[in-house]
């Protein structure tokens, strides 16, 4: 395995269809902006890219087949390079990064572009749309009616029972996230909000409120990665990919994802996310307490409290005390989502895993402005996706 470096990163600011940021831009236009920004940041030309690993979108572009990487190559210039389109639900960006990383680490290619972009349809993400009694997701929605936010809300409610987390503490996670996003030029929301604002927003699925759940957004992200040897030709201070991992759900996972499963004998948590992160710690020989900051998938503020505990970044039940004492802010001892997170960006689903790599890179270069984590040395990124997919990556300087 060769050491892999991040050479350049680019993001198209996130927004909502029709706004001043993304307007009516197509996913191809959003990706073009992100790719050209990453190429410029890396100091490489399009002709030097040897392969593309792209996140496959169900919602936009890709000729209806998730061929989003082919769209990018056609748009920027067909050089005949291999294109890998990776599908893993909302974890697709992380999966694409993992494949790009593997191609470089394995010595197949020296210079790879990883890209993900989305133009999302309005409202709650719908299910497969297949009306078949053999499709468990159809059965769950027809017979129960339990969209994504209600799944998250059952986890949030259980945490309130297990650890005494209050609705105000959930609101304070959002307040913290939105404070981080002030001055982040790529965030969709860049204004602070108060606890009162959050608590005044309507329940989407009690106990979770509108401002505590990430909306869908349009946006794109791209990163150029290469072998460490190659990186030294371009920069004296490359950011190193300590590892990139992928995992899927374990049979023992007890979260209410389908209609039913066995009652567990142990705790209930996201087994796919934990497996991806534990594998990353093991492969990188980096422990949870060595992490300077984390960018995790906060579809809802609940995850900012639950995931750090599940992964050993802090003790079970401790996260809310760390939140209350300001330790999860960029200047605290366990910074979580200094970017502002999904709650401030909205979810451009398949772009997220790539966008996290860009955020980690800016932090590790010391280029994160107001959201900078002081002396950031090691960053952890994590995504989750439908189907029981998860990814993690650890970057270091």
């Amino acid at each position, binding site marked *: 395995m060769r050491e892999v470096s991040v050479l350049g990163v680019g993001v198209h600011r996130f927004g909502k269809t029709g706004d001043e940021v993304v307007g009516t831009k197509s996913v191809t236009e959003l990706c073009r902006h992100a790719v050209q920004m990453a190429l410029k940041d890396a100091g490489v030309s399009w002709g030097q890219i040897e392969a593309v690993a792209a996140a496959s979108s169900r919602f936009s572009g890709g000729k209806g087949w998730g061929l989003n990487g082919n769209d990018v190559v056609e748009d920027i210039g067909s050089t005949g390079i291999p294109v890998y389109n990776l599908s893993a639900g909302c974890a697709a960006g992380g999966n694409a990064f993992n494949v790009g990383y593997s191609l470089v680490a394995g010595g197949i290619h020296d210079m790879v572009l990883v890209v993900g972009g989305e133009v999302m349809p309005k409202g709650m993400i719908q299910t497969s749309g297949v009306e078949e009694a053999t499709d468990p997701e159809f059965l769950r929605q027809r017979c129960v009616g339990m969209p994504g936010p209600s799944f998250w809300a059952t986890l949030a409610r259980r945490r309130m029972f297990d650890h005494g987390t209050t609705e105000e503490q959930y609101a304070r996670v959002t307040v913290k996230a939105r404070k981080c996003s002030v001055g982040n030029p790529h965030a969709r929301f860049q204004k602070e909000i108060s606890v009162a604002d959050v608590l005044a927003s309507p329940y989407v699925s*009690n106990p979770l409120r509108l401002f505590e759940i990430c909306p869908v957004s349009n946006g794109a992200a791209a990163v150029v990665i290469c072998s460490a040897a190659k990186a030294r030709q371009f920069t004296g201070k490359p950011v190193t990919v300590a590892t990139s991992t992928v995992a899927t759900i374990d049979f023992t996972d007890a979260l209410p994802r389908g209609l039913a499963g066995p009652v567990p004998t142990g705790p209930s948590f996201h087994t796919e996310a934990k497996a991806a992160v534990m594998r990353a710690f093991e492969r990188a020989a980096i422990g949870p307490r060595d992490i300077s900051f984390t960018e995790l998938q906060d579809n809802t503020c609940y995850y900012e409290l639950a995931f750090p505990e599940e992964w050993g970044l802090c003790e079970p039940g401790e996260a809310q005390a760390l939140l209350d004492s300001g330790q999860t802010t960029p200047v605290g001892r366990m910074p979580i989502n200094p970017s502002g997170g999904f709650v401030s960006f909205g979810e451009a689903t398949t772009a997220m895993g790539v966008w996290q790599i860009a955020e980690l890179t800016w932090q590790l270069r010391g280029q994160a402005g107001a959201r900078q984590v002081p002396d950031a040395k090691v960053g952890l990124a994590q995504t989750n996706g439908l189907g029981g997919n998860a990814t993690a990556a650890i970057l270091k300087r």
Partner: protein
Amino acid sequence: MAEKRSNEVDGAFVEEGSVAGGSFVPVLRVPAVPGLFSEEGGATVLGNKCLACGTPYFPKAAECHNPRCGESRMADCAFGGKGVIWSYSVADFPPPPPHKFDKPFKSYVIGVIDMDNGLRMVGQMVDPLEHVRVGAQVELVVDTLYHEEGKAYTSWKFKLV
């Protein structure tokens, strides 16, 4: 919500319909998806179980999914009875299709129930939010989900004991 009485009339389950001119108008009760649950002899969902490792499944699994189970000996099993609320949430907004509901939309509680029969199940709660608590005991029932073309479409739900 008024409690519904289900009765078997000429082989078809009916629910209490509108009472026009004092005469009882039966509304045909049909499952929202056929073959998933039964009302005969008490409410149950129709799943199966691996006799080798004891893993319960709903809906039915063709083979045992337990990677640590050496064999797959599947037997049909009807799951009903009682359980406790592991957690719950509320559908405060109408879920997107393929969910169906009576208009105007009325929010409902969704329970995650650890059943005595070994299944952790999701289902709508019959009871209002004010009465629902983690740890409370519930039982499986079959109740109306929505009405369409004069029929009441049913699903499994949970009710506080």
